[in-house]
Structures are given as structure tokens and as C-alpha cells.
């Protein structure tokens, strides 16, 4: 039987997409790279995933897992002929264990909806990427997604207790378990952040976090981005750990205001949003301290959200920043690097200078608290030669961050788009070790071949050619 016939037998026609236009729609995620998709499958159960993996292998094709396709690194974009497994339909929230604050969920559960679902128990799922209204828990696990509240709460890896995964042999394995600190090698942590290169995540045991009894959001405006950065350092060095601490520069604030109409000060050079969480008395006192630190560091305006609705609107603005900046130009390239907080100002200066050098509109919006920078270049790909400038600028930005002691961040994943920059952070020994780990799970590169690790990562390349390489 042909590949399509076998899969249609398994899933029916509605859940196997082979029309060229339908496949084309799946050729891209939230990043900039487009690829060709051979066939798309939409399974409902783990056993269907198992069968799809087996069928794909029998036909010599690799497998690309996909969640909501909000990834920014081309992680869900195939580089060659491959079968795509889309996990959005596997979106069941199984039993929520209120006592132990855990829940088993399908990989297609939408991040925010998990928190909405557990709200009545006073619980939420802490990692909250800006894309949380759309992205899936499976995609979050695969990319070890971070978010606004990861400053205080840590990234996805700190909130996942176990991962059920379909392996290259079509086996179902569970890595980790209900114990918070599993015995032996912690393979759960290997699965988190593996970007779909080790297997297809089909169930996740997440840790739920208690909702804070109270919170306050402050909006701090500065006429100088350096004062904003200094405020960030001062807040942290005073021993205050805000739930979230986020910065947006002027161009970003303007675009965001045009979308949410939340009353952001569009004339400020930089805006900091800080969320203080805790008991109501503690929150009020800490909010006052943050306000006076900001004033001491030259804030031109300090505002405390007058209602939860206003705070929610401010945060909605921050979370839609990437989308809103597209009002400035139709395309964007988004960076994801981490720099030491003390070097924030220095790196920011360098980033703006790189923007000027390559004549690109540079915007900055980032998780200020943990030094996770997201410089963003807006451009119009219809302009000839602009992509070359974008790529050159991108590489310079990464070099500048690494020179300042920073790292290529994993928050958005490495995928295809940051893959060839891995060598800037990792030496041959590191890359070889990562390649071997991957080989232990997936020796034939069935899953997401060509992603994350640059070609030649394996120092002694006696491995077999990846599945599908001969096609």
C-alpha cells in the first residue's frame, strides 16, 4: 500500500492531508523559514501516533512533530520529505490532582487554557510564554519554553514531572514520574527542550502552582533606556524578585498601544512592567519599594494598576508585542539571547548600533529580570537584499551577546534558524556529546532530522545516514 493509503486506513480522509495547498499551509511555523511537507496527519490518540511513526518508518520517511506552530526557530518545518504529526487534537486535560498539584495533559492542550481550567482549584501552570494563548504544552515541553513569570518560577523544565513519548521504534515510554526528583538519570529533563528530535510527546505530567493571593502591577516609564536597565539591576540587587519584570522600548510601546489602547506612555524611551506577587500586605509594601527605586533611578512616571482589568490590559500589551510590531513592517526577525544583567546596557547599546549599521528598524522587548533579550528587526522581505542584511545583523547580535558573557538562549528553541550559530556557544566536545545523546534515542534520525545540531556535530561520524536522506 502507498503511504497515504495506509495512513488513510488508520485515520480516515479528514485527518490525513495530502492536497498540495493543504500541505503548503503547514510549511511554516512562526519563524521565517518555509519547507515542503509531504503529508500531514492529525492523530487523536497515542496509539495512532505509534502507528503513524511505524508506517512512516516503513516508508523510509522521517517524522516532524508539530504543536500550534508558534515556534520561532523553524523547529516544526521539515527540511526534506517527511510526515508531519500535528498534535493539536490531543488536547484532553486528564485528571487534575488537586492534592498533589499535578495533572496529566495531552500535548495539544493550550498553555493558557490549562491555567484557566485549574483556576477553580486555585492553581495554574506557571510557565507563561507570550504565546500562551495559542501554544501547546507539548510544544512548550519540546522547546523548554520560558515566559514572563520564569524569573521567579523557572522555565518549563521546572514544571514537568513526567513525559510520555513515542520513540523511533514505535514504543511508548514514560520518562520521569510523580516523584519530584526521580531516581537514576533524570531522562525527563532530557526530553524537555529536545525540540522534537527524540520522540513525539504524547502526554505530560505537569506540576501546578498555587495562585498568588495578591498581585500588583507597576508601569514605570523612563526617558532613557539606560535608566530603565539600571532600575532592573537595582530592584534585583535589593533582593526583590518580582513575579515578572519586562521592558519595552519606545517603538515597541507605540505599536502595542495602537493595538491594546491601554494608555501606555508612547513618548517614553522605555517602559518597564513589574508584577509583584505575594500576600496583600507584602505586595503593597514591595510595590512601594519598587516605585521608589524606579524614581531614584530617574523614572519619569510611575503608575500602579488601578484594577486587575487594567493590569491585564498592560500585560496583554506586552504579550502581543511581537505581533504588534509587525504594524511597522511586514516581516520580523526575532532574537533570543541571554546576557548577564550587569551587561544589559552595554549589549543594548551594541544592538542599537548594529541596527543603525545595517539600516534595520531595531526594537527591543524583553524579559529584563533574567537578562533574556529579544532584539527584533522589522523589515520588508520584498526589498531586495534585505534578508542578507538581516542575517548579517543577526549574527553580529549573537556575537555581541556572547562576547559580553551571554549565551544563545534556548527559550525560543534552536530549530533550523539558530542551528548554525550553535558553534558560537558550544565547542566540538559539547556538540559531540549532544549528538551522542540524541543518537542513543534516535540512531536513525527519524525525528526532526537536521534540527538543533549543526551538521558534523558528531566528531566521529560513523552513524548511518538519516532516514530519508537517500530520497
Amino acid at each position, binding site marked *: 500500500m502507498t503511504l497515504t493509503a495506509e495512513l488513510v486506513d488508520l485515520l480516515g480522509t479528514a485527518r490525513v492531508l495530502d492536497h498540495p*495547498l493543504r500541505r503548503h499551509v503547514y510549511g511554516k511555523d*512562526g519563524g521565517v523559514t518555509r519547507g515542503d511537507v509531504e503529508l500531514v496527519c492529525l492523530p487523536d490518540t497515542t496509539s495512532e501516533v505509534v502507528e503513524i511513526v511505524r508506517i512512516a518508518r516503513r516508508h523510509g520517511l522521517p517524522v516532524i512533530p508539530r504543536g500550534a506552530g508558534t515556534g520561532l526557530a523553524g523547529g516544526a518545518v521539515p527540511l526534506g520529505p517527511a510526515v508531519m504529526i500535528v498534535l493539536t487534537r490531543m488536547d484532553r486535560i486528564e485528571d487534575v490532582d488537586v492534592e498533589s498539584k499535578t495533572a496529566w495533559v495531552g500535548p495539544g492542550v493550550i498553555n493558557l487554557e490549562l491555567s484557566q481550567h485549574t483556576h477553580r482549584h486555585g492553581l495554574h501552570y506557571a510557565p507563561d510564554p507570550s504565546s500562551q494563548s495559542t501554544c501547546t504544552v507539548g510544544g512548550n515541553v519540546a522547546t523548554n519554553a520560558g515566559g514572563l513569570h520564569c524569573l521567579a518560577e523557572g522555565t518549563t523544565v521546572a514544571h514537568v514531572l513526567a513525559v510520555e513519548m513515542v520513540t523511533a521504534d514505535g514504543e511508548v515510554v514514560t520518562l520521569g514520574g510523580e516523584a519530584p526528583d526521580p531516581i537514576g538519570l533524570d531522562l525527563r529533563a532530557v526530553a524537555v527542550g529536545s525540540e522534537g528530535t527524540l520522540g513525539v510527546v504524547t502526554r505530560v505530567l505537569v506540576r501546578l502552582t498555587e495562585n498568588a493571593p495578591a498581585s500588583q502591577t507597576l508601569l514605570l516609564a523612563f526617558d532613557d533606556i539606560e535608566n530603565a536597565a539600571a532600575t532592573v539591576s537595582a530592584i534585583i540587587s535589593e533582593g526583590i524578585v518580582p513575579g515578572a519584570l519586562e521592558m519595552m522600548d519606545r517603538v515597541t510601546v507605540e505599536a502595542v498601544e495602537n493595538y491594546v489602547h491601554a494608555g501606555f506612555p508612547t513618548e517614553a524611551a522605555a517602559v518597564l512592567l513589574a508584577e509583584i506577587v505575594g500576600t496583600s500586605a507584602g505586595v503593597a509594601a514591595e510595590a512601594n519599594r519598587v516605585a521608589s527605586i524606579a524614581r531614584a533611578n530617574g523614572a519619569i512616571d510611575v503608575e500602579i494598576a488601578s484594577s486587575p482589568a487594567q493590569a491585564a490590559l498592560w500585560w496583554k500589551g506586552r504579550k502581543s508585542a511581537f505581533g504588534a510590531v509587525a504594524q511597522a513592517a511586514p516581516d520580523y526577525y526575532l532574537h533570543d539571547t541571554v546576557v548577564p544583567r550587569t551587561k544589559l546596557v552595554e549589549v543594548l547599546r551594541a544592538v542599537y548600533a548594529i541596527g543603525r549599521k545595517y539600516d534595520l528598524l531595531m526594537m527591543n522587548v524583553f524579559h529584563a529580570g533574567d537578562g533574556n533579550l529579544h532584539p527584533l528587526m522589522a523589515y520588508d522581505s520584498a526589498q531586495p537584499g534585505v534578508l542578507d542584511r538581516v542575517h548579517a545583523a543577526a549574527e553580529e547580535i549573537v556575537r555581541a551577546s556572547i562576547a559580553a558573557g551571554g549565551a544563545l538562549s534556548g527559550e525560543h528553541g534552536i530549530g533550523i534558524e539558530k542551528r548554525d550559530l550553535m558553534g558560537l556557544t558550544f565547542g566540538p566536545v559539547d556538540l559531540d556529546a549532544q549528538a551522542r545523546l540524541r543518537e542513543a534515542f534516535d540512531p536513525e534520525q527519524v525525528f526532526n532530522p537536521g534540527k538543533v545540531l549543526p551538521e558534523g556535530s558528531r566528531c566521529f561520524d560513523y552513524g548511518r545516514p538519516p532516514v530519508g536522506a537517500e530520497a
Partner: protein
Amino acid sequence: MGWVTPEAPKPEELSACIQCGLCLPVCPTFRLTGDEVASPRGRLTAMSAVADGIAEVDDTFHEIMSFCLQCRACEPACPSLVPFGRAMEGARAEIAAQLPSAKTSLRQSLLGRRGLGSGGAVRGITRLAALGQLAEADRWLPGRLKKPIAGLRRLGLRSTSVIGQTHRPKGTPVATVGLLAGCVMDSWFPEVHKATIATLVAAGYAVSVPESQSCCGALAAHDGAVDEAKALAGTALQAFRDVDLVVSDAAGCGAHLKELGHWASGGRDFSSKVRDVTELVAESISVGRLPRLAERGVSVAIQDPCHLRHAQRIVAEPRDLLRAGGYTVLEIDPNGMCCGAAGLYSVLRPETSSELGDRKAAQVMATGARIVASANPGCEMQLRSSLGSGFRVAHPVELYAEAVGLV
């Protein structure tokens, strides 16, 4: 072949989409299927594929586009401000132009070449439907038509049209407003027009219902029937040229009139005069021209018609005026997902429509309320037929007018 009409999705409409995916979770067809192709982003990608010459306007393209409910929930979700509804009308216009088979759509075969343009067609259908209700036609009609009939209010056999009427307030009018009678509203929802007129007159407006008006053309526009939509837009411009404000008590019509600039020159100025009735009433209450009652323990579940909430971004006003009527307002759905009525969608794609209708009905039932407020005729019918007996579905202005004793 690419695009062939001037209405086609424009390059700047398509390139505004940066594929962030933030519109996916609010899209009803994506939520039902989990399929990117059935999402706003997917549909825009498919349109771009045609614009770029990678795909054709063929049956698959038609299928992808016609699955869309045109609910426009994706618009407020989009931080890049993609005008999805406009682009989709463009795609529909292309389908009508390029696919001969799509030209004789069900809309046309049901309602004739002039669509709902002639009130006569609707009046004819209305008499039939009224007779059908007497004969309990919902028992023997084919499935496709069973639901819509079940969703109708009890119809009278005598005409109740308000067309041609004028009403003056006591004293000097605050402004003169022209009421859009609409095609189905006038025949099937006469009580809503009555409440609208009574409330606006009480608020100090002079209300007229111009004789020369016809259907607003929304259904034609959604269906890609460009010539028809343009002709009807021209008629509306003429009919309402002498009033200060144009008011609609059907969200779908109001939304279309507010965007008449796409369909007629001079349409933009016209659109700036258009208001949904809930806007005028809520404003009148807030400045004290209409009374506000104390809460009295009657619960009303509020349903947001897509073309009120997503297309016109009107959320607070219907709630305000219900509260002013002394009702306790119960929310049914934080995202305001489509109830599946979506104009003629309920007849064209009954399965998807019913699935969404059932979801909505379950949300209403979960509130415990026995009264549901909806500001759009299509939604009202969908809710009534999905909820079954034991529930009252009414326009918020009707409920307000009853509460303060205007009707």
C-alpha cells in the same frame, strides 16, 4: 491564474499577517478540527499562495474558504491588525468570479437572483413559514430547513412591517435617526423594531424608517456577490441621505453598514453615521435621557453576536442597558465564540453549525438563566433552535423596553 477581480485580497492585507498564530484559539473552525488549514492564519496562507501563483482558485480553495464562518473573532485577536473579514470577502468574490459552479450558490437558489434585495421575497417566505408553523412544519421539513424554522419566533399571518413609519418625540428631537428595517428583521422580528422605535423615541430621537431602503447587502458581500452588494450599498446611501444617524438593531447589518466604504463611494461618510441600537440606548441611559432601574433578581444570559463583538467591538453596551433594565447579567463565554448561525452558514453547513450551536446552548444552560439576550436575528434563531423549549431568547433592547414599560 491568480486573482481576477479588484475586490481580491490586497497584498498589504495579506502581508500584514506575520504568522504569529495568536488568532488560532479564538477561531471556531480551528477549535473544532485542530487543523491549521481551518484557521485564520491557514486561510491567509492559502490566499497568499494564490496571490503568489503557487495555488489556484479551485475547488479545494473554495472548500477552505467556505468553511470559514466569517465570524471575525480572529480580528480582535490579531496584534498585527490584519483586516481578515475584508480579505475573506475578497477571496469569496474571487471564488464567485472564477468558479462557475460556485456562482449558483445556495443563497441565490434559496432567495432568488436579487437575494434578499426585494422585501417581497422575504414577505413571501414569511407567509409560507407562518403557515408552516401552523402546520407544525418542523416535523416534516428536510433537516436543512428544520432548524431555521424551529428558530423562528411565532409569526403572524398579517404584515407587521414598520417601513414608511415616522415617529417624533415630545419636544425637540436630540437627532433624527433612520432605522434600517432589514430584510428578515422587518418580517420575522417585528417586536424588536417596535421596542427599538419606542426606546429611541423615549430617549428623544425622531425615528423614521425610510420607504426607499432595501436589504443592506451583508449576505451578498459575505458570499462574494460583488455587483449585488454594490447595488444594495448604493440604495442604502440614497435611502438614508437625510438623517443624522442610521441605526440598526441587527448586529450583522450594522457591521456591514459600518464598512460600506468597501462597497460604495461615499460609503465611508455614511458609515460614520451608523450606530447599533445598543450604543444609542446605552449612551442615552448614561446621560439620563432614559431611566435606570434597580436590580430585581431576574437573570439574563448574554450572548455576543460575532458581528457586534468582533466586527463592531461592542461589548459593554448591551450589558449596560440590561443592567439598567434591572436584570442580572450572566456571562456565558469569555471569548464570545460563534454560535454557528453565521448568516446562511447554518443552512449551507448544517453539521458544523449545529455543533457550535450545541456548544453555545450548553454554555447558556450552565448559567441557569432562562432568558438569553442576543442582538442579532441569526444568533437568536440559532439559540432558540439549539436550546429547545423552556427558554426565552430576546433582543437586549426588547428586554430593556419591557422592563421600563415602553412596550
